[in-house]
């Protein structure tokens, strides 16, 4: 097997807060290969963004990190900030939910893409600007040359996200982390942006970590999925398998809780209660307080164990068919 582009092994992230330590990510492992899209899916606060910031080396100083993050076989955790900086943009790039926070309002769209090219590819200013306009056209910004001279506030949300993608992909990174890249956009624009990301990925072979809370997006755009719950991976599988044979009770509930347009007008499955406070997580399985299958044994933490080809679930009851036989 080829070495994966990204390998995350037992990642833990702990913040010091005034109400005690908060372990936002607790033993997360996954790998992503070239040209592959791994979706990380879960509800807000489950640790998706913290995981991606850890990979990018963008967590605030003082954050306690454990485990390993390997990019193309090279360990990144524990490296000095300068080492990350060189990597970001060139090997690693990230796009965020709200492009306004990562675009500089004082520079035009073209200048920002050109800057990335000058920094990482060493292009001369003129050549960088030409390439920038080319990139903007590639992410299908109409009238790219004119738009390149506009400032972020003059662009629609969809166009700003395209500029972000152009910036992120300008230097053909090996790994792209897209954290809820379309959550702030309308569905028709979301569909355009996700189709564009798929197409660019096919052309460049970039490995993509697509962070989302939307299972529909996962179904359409991911090769593999990791479902996170309260800082841990509950289940991981090829995307098709996850939808056809989910083996973690949380995944089962989540799939039933999504109101689907083809579902007709019925009641939804509902996972009672709310996600646990990560400062005082329940012992053992973190889903236990909301799980209809929970028992005494769930007070011990279930390992993420193989249940099928490339399919693992962190549940004492998996495979769940046993629950149906009873």
């Amino acid at each position, binding site marked *: 097997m080829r070495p994966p582009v990204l390998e995350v092994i037992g990642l833990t992230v702990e913040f010091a807060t005034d109400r005690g330590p908060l372990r936002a990510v607790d033993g997360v492992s996954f790998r992503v290969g070239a040209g592959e899209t791994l979706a990380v899916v879960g*509800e*807000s606060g489950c640790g998706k963004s913290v995981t991606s910031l850890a990979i990018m080396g963008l967590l605030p100083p003082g954050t306690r990190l454990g485990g390993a993050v390997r990019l193309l076989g090279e360990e990144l955790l524990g490296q000095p900030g300068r080492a990350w900086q060189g990597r970001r943009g060139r090997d690693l790039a990230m796009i965020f939910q709200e492009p306004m926070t990562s675009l500089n309002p004082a520079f035009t769209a073209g200048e920002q893409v050109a800057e990335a090219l000058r920094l990482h590819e060493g292009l001369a200013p003129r050549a960088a600007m030409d390439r920038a306009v080319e990139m903007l056209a590639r992410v*299908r910004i*109409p009238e790219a040359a004119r738009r390149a001279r506009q400032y972020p506030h003059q662009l*629609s949300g*969809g*166009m700003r996200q395209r500029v972000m993608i152009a910036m992120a992909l300008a230097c053909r990174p090996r790994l792209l982390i897209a954290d809820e890249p379309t959550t702030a956009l*309308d*569905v*028709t*624009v*979301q*569909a*355009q942006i*996700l*189709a564009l990301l798929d197409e660019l990925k096919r052309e460049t072979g970039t490995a993509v970590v697509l962070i989302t*809370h*939307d*299972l*529909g*997006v*996962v*179904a*359409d*755009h991911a090769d593999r999925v990791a479902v996170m719950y309260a800082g841990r991976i509950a289940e991981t599988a090829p995307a*098709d398998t996850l*939808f*056809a*044979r*989910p083996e973690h*009770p949380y995944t*089962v*509930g*989540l*799939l*039933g*809780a*999504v*109101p*689907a*347009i*083809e*579902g*007709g*007008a*019925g*009641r*939804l*499955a*509902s*996972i*009672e209660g*709310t*996600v646990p406070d990560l400062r005082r997580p329940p012992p053992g399985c973190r889903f236990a307080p*909301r799980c*209809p*299958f929970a028992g005494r044994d769930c007070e011990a933490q279930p390992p993420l164990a193989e249940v099928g080809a490339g399919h693992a679930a962190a549940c004492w009851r998996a495979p769940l*068919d046993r*629950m*149906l036989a009873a």
Partner: protein
Amino acid sequence: MTALLELAEVARHFPVRDALGRARGAVRAVDGVSLAVPPGSVLAIVGESGCGKSTLGRLALRLIEPDAGAIRFLGEDLRALSPRALRARRRDMQMIFQDPFASLDPRMTVEDAIAEPLRLHRIVPRGGERARVAELLERVGLRPEAARRWPHEFSGGQRQRIAIARALASGPKLVIGDEPVSALDVSVQAQVVNLLRDLIRDLGLTFVLISHDLGVVRHIADRVAVMYLGRIVEEGPAAEVFADPRHPYTRALLAAVPGMGAKAVPIEGDPPSPIAPPPGCRFHPRCPHAEALCRAEAPPLAGGAHAAACHLQSRLPPPPVLRGPDRGGERLRRLQSFFGAPAPQPETTGINA
């Protein structure tokens, strides 16, 4: 049957000013909308950001004034009511907003927040408030002890339940929910969607659901109105609009919903500016079927109980066949029944067929 709520050719424009305060045209936020909501029904208003959904909702309750058109509640023109009569009417018309953090006053306990409309409209005799608040809390799935606590002590989903209890306190006939579940996470959203369904059924509420989420709409609404740039482009029974969308924009919206194996090519472009909407059919710059007529003349909303505003309505190709992913079949349905979902027979719609 008379409609509980009826809008006739309602319009509201907002002036756009430049940096010096000079008028520079107007945003035609709602631009000639007619709708009738029968009592006990749920109408959803869908469409993308900025198409005028919230403005329409606020107009319907006369929280803002229309520039033109009539708004009738139980046959009575809301515009003709005196401020005092309107205040009395408010008891029958309530609104739930997207952001449960913003819509509750942080300085009021839950009890005070829910009791306020009771006092305002003198609904229960003095001293009877506490019992009514407890009853309302129970209705929305909260414990009576919640009454003594403060909004910040609750999660987003619980706050939305409190906001719902407050909206129901005066015993309204009509409730308008403006993206009432959009800020909630999937698992909590499902709880609140189920709650809304139950309340609508048990209390016989008439409900207008403003939402950009077509999945949520599918689960709650009887009828759907699709808006584009201030106008309704399609309106009809929910099952029909989803199975047999008659307007190209509705089709584009449905095709863009992720999770339908959307390998369909998404429509191009952003919605145009509502300051200078395109002439003729407002959808024509993005419409794959546009013809010369579409650029010249605005199509009327036509077709009766399932109407669309499209010149080519009768000549459009059949809607594209979309198929949802295999949701795990019978095995998954049986597992989900442990989460309180009925194991339903999958309903076949034209979208699946």
